[in-house]
């Protein structure tokens, strides 16, 4: 059972530069273990020490976010496409602005936060 996995630029150091790799697994969790066998260290960048999906990683099965499909338990089938992406909000500028404000603290953002 082959599943196509799309690797983002920042993780291609683990795949020898490959943009698309193949793996097998009944679930997303199985697939990541299979991939880690071929591309050592990749799984560690996606999963936290507690075994959950990293907060700043989004993984999609056939364009649908796995967090709404059971996360690591999401079922996979032959021919599925898995896409891994880093979380960026509202594009790169949104990310940059947000990071700047968080680091700046609340002084200049009096109505920020909940």
């Amino acid at each position: 059972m082959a599943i196509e996995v799309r690797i983002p630029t920042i993780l291609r150091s683990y795949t020898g530069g490959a943009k698309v790799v193949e793996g097998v697994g009944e679930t997303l969790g199985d697939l990541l273990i299979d991939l880690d066998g071929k591309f050592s260290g990749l799984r560690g960048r996606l999963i936290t020490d507690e075994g959950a999906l990293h907060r700043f990683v989004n993984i999609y099965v056939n364009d649908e976010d796995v967090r709404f499909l059971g996360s690591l338990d999401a079922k996979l089938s032959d021919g599925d496409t898995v896409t891994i992406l880093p979380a960026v909000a509202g594009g790169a500028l949104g990310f940059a602005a947000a990071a700047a404000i968080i680091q700046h603290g609340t002084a200049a953002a009096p109505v920020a936060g909940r």
Partner: protein
Amino acid sequence: MARYESLLDACGGTPLVGLPRLSPVVPEGAPPVRLWAKLEDRNPTGSVKDRAALFMVRAAEEAGQLRPGDTILEPTSGNTGIALAMVAKLRGYRLVCVMPENVSSERVQLLRMYGAEIIFSPAAGGSNQAVATAKQIAAEHPDWVMLFQYGNEANARAHYETTAPELLRDLPTITHFVAGLGTTGTLMGTGRYLREKVEGIQIIAAEPRYGELVYGLRNIDEGYVPELYDANVLTRRFSVGTRDAVLRTRQLVEVEGLFVGFSTGAVLHAALAVAHEAVKAGRRADVAFLVADGGWKYLSTGAYGGTLADAEEALEGQLWA
């Protein structure tokens, strides 16, 4: 009623229009599956962001954080900047926008026309440089007010108090709400309200999947999830690529005469996916989706004409939503 005391009072109250030609055909005798578009391009500056800008400014005024003559700093080149520029002008504030120097000239012209001042951050430095520039400006001007749409509850509240009640009033039989995911304000506010009022409603996010350049972070740990985001509000979340977004954007104008920005194409793609699932399952569905803005500001990308491959190439590396 179509008469208002001022432009600010004309914010919201946008039309919800049916899309009979794009709605999927159901088998004879099967329950109807219908698509509806909420036309947020009919707001004063032409985008859904007018609602958030107005609510964020009002909240800051009520909290005593913003007084006439104050300066608002917003790092945005998009619709929020344009919406804030209009609100700032009418409410007596100065607006400073920080944006990369490689944004389209129509945005710069539009912001300047509304009276906003612009500080450019070098394009070459990418997001890291923009971080540095924004940080520096904020540090030099501690008295400037940053509304911070990604974490400002008034952003989501604008939709809880206005967008969502309008939708429910106009479409009491709503079964799905689909919108784009950026600051997450639209989906969080509208989603929360509809979940409280409509049993079994599905709240669906369509997230633009950009070209690779946009994801060029150095490290996963440099990623960002908006403070407003609560995954519990959503039922499903789709990632939509540039090609599908362009295809649907063109389809909307060709089939239904709606000229929209590319983010709406991504939203329609997700809306059609759930609509076709409903047809397959033989379920009734009233799928309402949000048109965030019109296509005018994106004409210079050239992505409305030519082949899909040309359009995809034209949008590579751009923040099309």
